[in-house]
């Protein structure tokens, strides 16, 4: 099993190292695919021009200071909702995880019930419930919904993290005479947090993306500001220009955070402090709701477990 690093398909079970003939064939496929993709892009650009999306009338509004401020205010509100949701869901996640790891059975059951319920519910149902039934302002409703959902998922992430720390660590700590709380706070949790940091950040990306749900309950966030501009007849209903301005900013923010998760994952994997625990991949928590704790993990795959439970 010599490590062969071909430029195209490094260490995959799918291909041999391509010979001259195969390389030529791949080059041909590449050329055809490039032409097809270029044609697709060209067609989209043509459509954009054909439907007059680049006329001055539709782009003019973005030069006005008022509109720029409207967009910035929207962005600020999005970030504000995200900040609240992130802090609260980390806190809730910590509490629920502690409860699920508790030695008292009723506490454990209650926490399990809550976590499973909130994870099985669409976030939007919770947000709407708080907004419509409890008649709360949009921002608290949005933050509550996001907190309940992401907090429950984070609780599972924390718990998985604690459970994946090598058993020897726990046993060694107990045999030193530490009590359960000490074992947790001094031994297990620090290692678990390190290992789960990529997953935690990835879950925060989910929270950031979901702040856009505030749009549906008329919270004045980024997308809402966009809608206001897009629905303006004076500017010729600039839906496409608005999407073209908003999406790169939104996607850019999420990408930046995702990238941070990947960077952290790489860094933690190299760290000496994660030797007794496997660093999770930078993916949001994805455990099937209702599934027990006995799902197979994928051990020692090149970059950590792919399915984070």
């Amino acid at each position, binding site marked *: 099993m010599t490590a062969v690093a071909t430029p195209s398909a490094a260490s995959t079970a*799918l291909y041999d190292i391509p010979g001259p003939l195969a390389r030529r064939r791949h080059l041909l496929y*590449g050329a055809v695919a490039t032409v097809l*993709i270029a044609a697709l892009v060209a067609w989209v650009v043509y459509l954009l021009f054909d439907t007059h999306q680049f006329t001055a009338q539709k782009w003019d509004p973005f030069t006005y200071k008022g509109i720029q401020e409207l967009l910035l205010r929207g962005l600020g509100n999005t970030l504000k909702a995200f900040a609240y949701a992130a802090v609260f869901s980390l806190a809730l996640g910590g509490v629920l995880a502690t409860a699920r790891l508790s030695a008292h059975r009723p506490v454990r059951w209650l926490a399990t019930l809550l976590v499973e319920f909130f994870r099985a*519910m669409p976030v939007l149902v919770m947000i709407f419930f708080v907004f419509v039934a409890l008649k709360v302002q949009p921002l608290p409703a949005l933050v509550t919904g996001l907190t309940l959902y992401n907090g429950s998922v984070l609780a599972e992430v924390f718990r998985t993290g604690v459970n994946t720390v090598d058993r020897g660590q726990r046993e060694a700590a107990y045999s030193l005479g530490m009590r359960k709380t000490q074992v947790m706070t001094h031994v297990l949790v620090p290692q678990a947090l390190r290992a789960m940091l990529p997953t935690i950040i990835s879950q925060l990306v989910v929270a950031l993306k979901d702040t856009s749900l505030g749009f549906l309950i008329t919270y004045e966030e980024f997308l809402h500001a966009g809608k206001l501009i897009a629905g303006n007849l004076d500017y010729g*209903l600039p839906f496409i220009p608005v999407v073209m301005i908003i999406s790169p900013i939104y996607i850019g923010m999420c*990408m930046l955070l995702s990238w941070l998760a990947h960077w952290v994952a790489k860094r933690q994997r190299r760290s000496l402090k994660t030797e007794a625990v496997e660093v999770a991949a930078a993916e949001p928590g994805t455990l099937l709701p209702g599934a027990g704790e006995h799902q197979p993990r994928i051990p020692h795959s090149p970059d950590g477990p792919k399915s984070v439970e």
Partner: protein
Amino acid sequence: MNVLTDNLSLYGKGLLGTVELTVYASLLALVLGFLMASFRVAPVGSLRAFGTVWVTVLRNTPLTLLFFAVLLGLPRFGVVLPFQLFAVLALGCYTSAFICEAVRAGINTVPTGQGEAARSLGMTFTQTLGSVVLPQAFRSVIPPVGSTLIALAKNSAIAGSFSVTELLGTYKTLNELGYSIIWSFVWIAVGYLIVTLTISAVFNVLEKRWGVAR
């Protein structure tokens, strides 16, 4: 309590709408996701780049923004389709990025030796893929695909706010009819639990049957 019995047909229609959205979007997501995964492991550079861009962009797009762009933006191109189809398109494309990553991760968990052994037995590319690599990848892909599809079912609630008939949207009608909001939400929650727990159960059975015992 009588919210449910009085409005059984309304709830039924909503639940059916959610199930339809979920099923159609799942099919689209599975097909597109598989296609994109094959692009991402292909020996052709431009296809790999296309797959990577597709996955990176869609995974980092808020679904509401995608709905906004597809349901309100595409009609500006003169594309006029029923809202439900638009919703399936948005949901399916969004989820396909996650399916793609799950499938790709599954393929990557198959040890290199398996493919090498298959090839050294003289198997062709199709044979290697079809009878050695994919069956093994399939096993480790079951749980992540399951949770992705559950996420899809939950995400379909967004469609309700874009005038597609589905479960969450029923609260509006019930609210106007003057029923207790809390109870109408309780039954909506039960509906979603039925959908998500069914998918979860199906995938747990699949997992028991074909999952890798490790």
